[in-house]
């Protein structure tokens, strides 16, 4: 080493005093000893420099020297002192930043001194020194690192001139100085550290106090800790605290004086949470050890960190890092990390120790605050929980009181309103069949909003159905989020901006959903989600419960209903048992039945005998026009009541609308009713329909299976009762009919008078069989005679007679009695319709009168007598009795008519017999009279002859006259007896003709000649066109005929006049006529004129004798000759009898 003259840059007393001893060993020793003594006493770096540098100049003959030291106060090297070095050169040597490459800095990294032997050498390595060195005399340099225990504490730089010659002792001296300086520096450092420790203890105390003063708010404490630690230690201070999960760390607080850096670091670190099992945290937290990274290689740092950190590091390159655990006795809270950046001095072990202390205190404060915060939050949580619990208890209590699903829904709706404010909501329930989500309760929606969602099939991809299917809630923060998942809703008019759709789940089953819509986009934090789900659970549980309650309630209601109905059915049965008549049964059915069914209206019909009509037995609870209209219903009408009978099955209609939809004919009637539901039950007896019962219900009914069963059971009861009543009625009717017939028979035979019997017939029928009964008998003029009539109302009886008088019935009428008399078949009109009246009426006036009768039902039966129809019996039921005839009644009427026929026939026969007797008596009387007349003359003459003989007064003339009279009278008697005998023969069939061919003209002439002499008042004229008219016949009988006719002509023209006998021949017959101008014969007598014993009224009145057998005999004789006899006559003008006799075959 070359020795150079050292020129001290700063002269000092010490320096100047030691200069003289420079070249001697003793002086070196002295200098060294002084220096070392001085160095032991120094208390700062300047003092070390003051002691060291002069020694360097003196001993080493150096031209200049400087001492730079590493301090804890500043990063890099700090100039402790310089000797004989220009300031420009000092500036050039000292680093601008701690890391700038200067020989000083570089030397600090070296273990040994570094020599630069020439100016060119050093400038070559550090060009920045060129200018400063150019104007200096310094040629050679040595930079010596001052180390203790290999820790570099400073650099001693010594400069030599060109002239300096390195002496052999110089390196040793340099080393010695080096050691002395290093020790001094180390001692000074220890001193500083000791001082620092004291200061740090104070600081720690202060820090603890400040931490404590930060209060109990964790956030404030953390702010205070980071800020204070940053101030005390230097660099950014970050506190990361352990998450409750024990796995993650979260950044709790961060401080750096540069707020921009702090904000950047905050964002970075919060965005990238750290786990405890990665990076530095492993050592710090798991092992509880501090980590000190004095200097950090940027490249390896970047490589070790996620790319997210790179930009930040680009801007704020971390150069040193110190991290310590935050520990308390109860455990580790987290970690506190200090970072320094490029240009700042790295953290030292010292910092580490200090930080550990600080961290312990900070941890305590944090733990306290934490505890407090925990306590506070626990309290808040407890309070919140209490409030929450209170509210939820309220909810639970409220829903617990809810008895029906609707009440639950209303409460939930109310709670939702309280909890989430102006949200709109829907509660949907899954239908029983599990296919559809049905919206049952809404909050804040108009019906129009929900039209599309009212029933949501569960197999669709909609939020509601998805929630039901998955059982998982959906929370949608915005329409965008919702539409992203459900694109089809993009088109929907969404009423809300955010949604929470929570399943109503209970016992693993999803009952439905609670869907809430919010007017603004929003997030749903876990608490809120939890709350809503809780709400939904409550709702679901309550729903479940109420649904079960409802089921139970329904079951109970059903049971009660069944019990009630059973009771009513029993009551009905009991009532029905005691109801014996159809009307009683009807009354019971419509009253008890309606009560049992809670029906508002009821009808009961029975089927008419012809099975074509339903006939009302009772119609109750319907408006009057309907009652009237529904008296009869055609069975083929398309109405449900008829359908029930047709199919033999009940017909139910839950609603009036469905009834009208199925049966449009019912629309006008339904329009008059308030009733909503209808049931029509056929009444079946022995499996055949006998009627139908209909019930109407004002409150709508849903006819459940049970209800239907009940109705059917009720109908069965009714059917039985009605059937029984019908049978009873039929039996009773049969009995009544028998009684009636029996009485009728008695009554009918009470009189043998025909007219009285007719009257009796009608009287018997009214009122028992009819309100109006008429017997009509055909008359000869083609009219019907109203032979007898009876009416329950006497006034109407007269009125009915007048009606018939004004509107006579003719036999050709196609209705009623004429039809019956013509056909012999009964007519039965169970119901007399207005159409029938129109058909029957001949004019509007008659129709009006017929309508006034009030026809309701009618039977017309023929009256027969020995297979001959003699008339018709009409039984008419009017609105007076309202009675409706049945076929039973027809049978009765027929039987009655048969008896009437017999009675009438008997009456007629009796009358005829009576008449016959009378005729016979009359005949006998007449015959006796007729016989007595000739007998009187005969007897008188005989006695006269006797008397004259006795008296001797007899003369031959007198005797001859008497004998003539006697003979004449005997002949008369003989003729009479002969005629009577003829009658007997005719009746006995013993009348024999003795035929021969005879000339009729001659025969008639003979009779005329015989008769003519006896006539005094009559002129007998015989006219005959031919002299011969031959025929085969009995001449005596034919004479008898002509005698009779001529004698009659004379006899019945008592005033005398012409009697003309005329005979002429026609084609095959001889025509003989006898005409007179006498009394004539009344028209009414003509038909009977040729009857035996008949005498016309007028001849009796004229006391013209006769027995009423002459014409009878005439007819018999003529008939037996194959001829005919006719009469034409005008009363008081005369008669002509014409006899037609067949000619003899020869003619």
């Amino acid at each position, binding site marked *: 080493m070359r020795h150079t003259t050292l020129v001290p840059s700063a002269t000092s007393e010490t320096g100047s005093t030691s200069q003289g001893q420079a070249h001697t060993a003793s002086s070196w020793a002295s200098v060294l000893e002084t220096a070392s003594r001085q160095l032991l006493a120094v208390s700062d770096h300047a003092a070390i420099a003051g002691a060291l540098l002069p020694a360097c100049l003196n001993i080493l003959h150096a031209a200049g020297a400087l001492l730079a030291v590493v301090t804890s106060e500043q990063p890099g090297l700090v100039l402790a002192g310089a000797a004989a070095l220009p300031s420009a050169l000092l500036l050039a040597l000292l680093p601008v930043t701690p890391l700038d490459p200067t020989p000083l800095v570089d030397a600090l990294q070296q273990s040994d001194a570094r020599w630069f032997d020439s100016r060119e050498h050093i400038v070559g390595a550090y060009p920045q020194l060129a200018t400063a060195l150019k104007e200096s005399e310094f040629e050679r340099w040595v930079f010596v690192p001052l180390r203790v225990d290999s820790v570099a504490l400073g650099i001693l730089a010594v400069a030599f001139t060109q002239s300096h010659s390195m002496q052999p002792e110089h390196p040793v001296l340099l080393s010695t100085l080096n050691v002395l300086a290093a020790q001094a520096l180390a001692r000074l450092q220890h001193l500083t550290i000791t001082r620092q420790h004291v200061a740090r203890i104070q600081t720690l105390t202060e820090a603890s106090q400040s931490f404590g003063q930060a209060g109990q708010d964790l956030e404030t404490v953390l702010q205070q800790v980071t800020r204070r630690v940053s101030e005390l230690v230097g660099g950014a201070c970050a506190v990361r605290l352990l998450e409750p999960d024990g796995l993650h760390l979260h950044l709790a607080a961060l401080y750096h004086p540069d707020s921009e850096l702090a904000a950047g670091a905050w964002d970075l670190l919060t965005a990238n949470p750290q786990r405890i099992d990665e990076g530095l945290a492993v050592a710090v937290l798991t092992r509880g050890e501090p980590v000190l990274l004095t200097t950090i290689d940027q490249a390896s740092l970047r490589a070790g960190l996620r790319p997210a950190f790179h930009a930040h590091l680009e801007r704020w390159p971390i150069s040193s890092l110190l991290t310590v655990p935050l520990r308390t006795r109860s455990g580790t809270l987290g970690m506190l990390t200090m970072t320094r950046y490029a240009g700042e001095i790295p953290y030292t072990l010292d910092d580490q120790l200090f930080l550990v202390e600080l961290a312990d205190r900070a941890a305590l404060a944090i733990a306290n605050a934490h505890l407090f915060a925990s306590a506070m939050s626990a309290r808040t949580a407890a309070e919140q929980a209490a409030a929450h619990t209170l509210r939820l208890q309220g909810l639970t209590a409220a829903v617990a009181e809810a008895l029906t699903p609707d009440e639950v829904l209303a409460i939930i709706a109310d709670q939702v309103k309280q909890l989430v404010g102006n949200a709109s909501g829907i509660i949907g329930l899954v239908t029983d069949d599990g296919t559809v989500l049905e919206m049952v309760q809404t909050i804040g929606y108009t019906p129009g909003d929900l039209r599309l969602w009212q029933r949501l099939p569960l197999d669709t991809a909609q939020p509601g159905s998805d929630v039901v299917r998955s059982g998982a809630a959906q929370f949608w923060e915005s329409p965008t989020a919702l539409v992203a998942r459900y694109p089809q809703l993009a088109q929907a008019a969404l009423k809300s901006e955010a949604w929470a759709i929570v399943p109503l789940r209970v016992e693993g089953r999803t009952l439905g959903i609670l869907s809430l819509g919010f007017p603004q986009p929003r997030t749903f934090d876990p608490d809120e989600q939890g709350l809503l789900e809780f709400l939904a659970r409550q709702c679901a549980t309550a729903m479940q419960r109420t649904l079960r309650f409802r089921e139970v309630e329904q079951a109970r209601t059903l049971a009660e209903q069944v019990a009630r109905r059973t009771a009513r059915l029993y009551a009905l049965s009991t009532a029905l048992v005691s109801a014996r008549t159809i009307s009683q049964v009807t009354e019971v059915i419509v009253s008890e039945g309606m009560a049992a069914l809670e029906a508002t209206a009821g009808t009961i019909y029975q089927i008419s005998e012809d099975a074509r009509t339903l006939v009302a037995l009772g119609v109750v609870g319907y408006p009057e026009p309907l009652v009237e209209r529904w008296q009869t219903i055609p069975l083929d009408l398309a109405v449900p009541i008829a359908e029930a009978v047709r199919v033999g099955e009940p017909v139910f209609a839950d609603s009036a609308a469905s009834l009208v939809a199925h049966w449009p004919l019912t629309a006008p009637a339904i329009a008059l009713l308030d009733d909503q539901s209808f049931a029509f039950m056929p009444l079946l007896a022995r499996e055949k329909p006998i009627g139908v019962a209909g019930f109407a219900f004002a409150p709508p009914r849903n006819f459940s299976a049970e209800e239907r069963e009940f109705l059917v059971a009720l109908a069965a009861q009714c059917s039985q009762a009605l059937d029984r009543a019908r049978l009873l009625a039929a039996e009773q009717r049969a009995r009544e009919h028998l009684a009636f017939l029996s009485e009728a028979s008695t009554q009918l035979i009470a009189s043998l008078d025909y007219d009285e019997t007719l009257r009796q017939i009608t009287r018997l029928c009214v009122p028992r069989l009819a309100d109006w009964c008429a017997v009509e008998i055909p008359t000869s003029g083609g009219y019907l005679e109203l032979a007898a009539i009876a009416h329950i109302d006497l006034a109407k009886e007269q009125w009915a007679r007048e009606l018939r008088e004004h509107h006579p019935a003719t036999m050709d009428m196609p209705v009623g009695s004429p039809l019956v008399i013509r056909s012999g078949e009964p007519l039965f009109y169970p119901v007399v319709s207005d159409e029938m009246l129109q058909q029957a009426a001949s004019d509007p006036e008659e129709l009006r009168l017929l309508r006034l009768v009030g026809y309701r039902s009618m039977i017309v039966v023929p009256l027969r007598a020995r297979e001959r129809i003699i008339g018709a019996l009409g039984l008419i039921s009017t609105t007076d009795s309202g009675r409706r005839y049945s076929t039973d009644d027809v049978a009765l009427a027929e039987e009655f008519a048969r008896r009437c026929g017999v009675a009438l026939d008997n009456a007629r026969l009796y009358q005829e017999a009576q008449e016959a007797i009378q005729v016979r008596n009359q005949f006998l009387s007449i015959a006796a*009279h007729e016989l007595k007349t000739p007998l*009187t*003359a005969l*007897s008188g003459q005989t006695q006269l002859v006797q008397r004259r003989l006795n*008296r001797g007064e007899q003369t031959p003339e007198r005797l001859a006259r008497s004998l003539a009279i006697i003979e004449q009278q005997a002949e008369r008697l003989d003729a009479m007896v002969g005629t009577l005998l003829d009658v007997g023969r005719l009746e006995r069939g013993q009348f024999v003709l003795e035929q021969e061919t005879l000339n009729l003209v001659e025969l008639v002439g003979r009779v005329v000649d015989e008769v003519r002499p006896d006539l005094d008042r009559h002129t007998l004229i015989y006219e005959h066109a031919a002299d011969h008219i031959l025929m085969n016949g009995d001449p005596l009988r034919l004479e008898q005929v002509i005698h009779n006719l001529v004698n009659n002509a004379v006899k019945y023209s*008592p005033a005398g006049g012409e009697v003309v006998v005329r005979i002429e021949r026609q084609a095959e017959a001889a025509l003989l006529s006898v005409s007179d101008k006498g009394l004539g014969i009344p028209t009414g007598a003509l038909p009977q004129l040729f009857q035996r014993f008949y005498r016309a009224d007028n001849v009796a009145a004229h*006391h013209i004798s006769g027995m009423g057998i002459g014409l009878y005999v005439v007819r018999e004789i003529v008939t037996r000759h194959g001829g005919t006899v006719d009469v034409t006559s005008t009363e008081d003008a005369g008669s002509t009898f014409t006899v037609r006799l067949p000619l003899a075959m020869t003619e």
Partner: protein
Amino acid sequence: MAHEADQSAALTSAQILVIDDDPAILETVADILSDEGYRVVTARNGVEGLAAVERAQPALVLLDRWMPVLDGLGFFQELQRRALGIPIIAMTAAHDAEPWARQLGAVGVLPKPFKLSALLGLVAGALGGT
């Protein structure tokens, strides 16, 4: 047409009118009465009888019941109307002669056929009573 009885008898005794429609009876009764000396007037019906009453003013009428033109009752009523007080003997073959006779207020009834004695007894009785 009246059959005049024996005119001589009529002069000595009472005039009797016989009315009957049967000529044989009329003649027989007239002969019987004439034989007894009565004057007899005959008529064949009520009308003729009334004419005979006017003409002959009989003291007694023998009246038949059934006659044409005007019967016995009709004649009686007409006779009563004239209040002549001529007694009547009812004469009939009818079985109900008695009631009819009472109806006429007849002084006697002569059922046909009759005995001569009965006829003459009745006539004598009737005329004797006057």
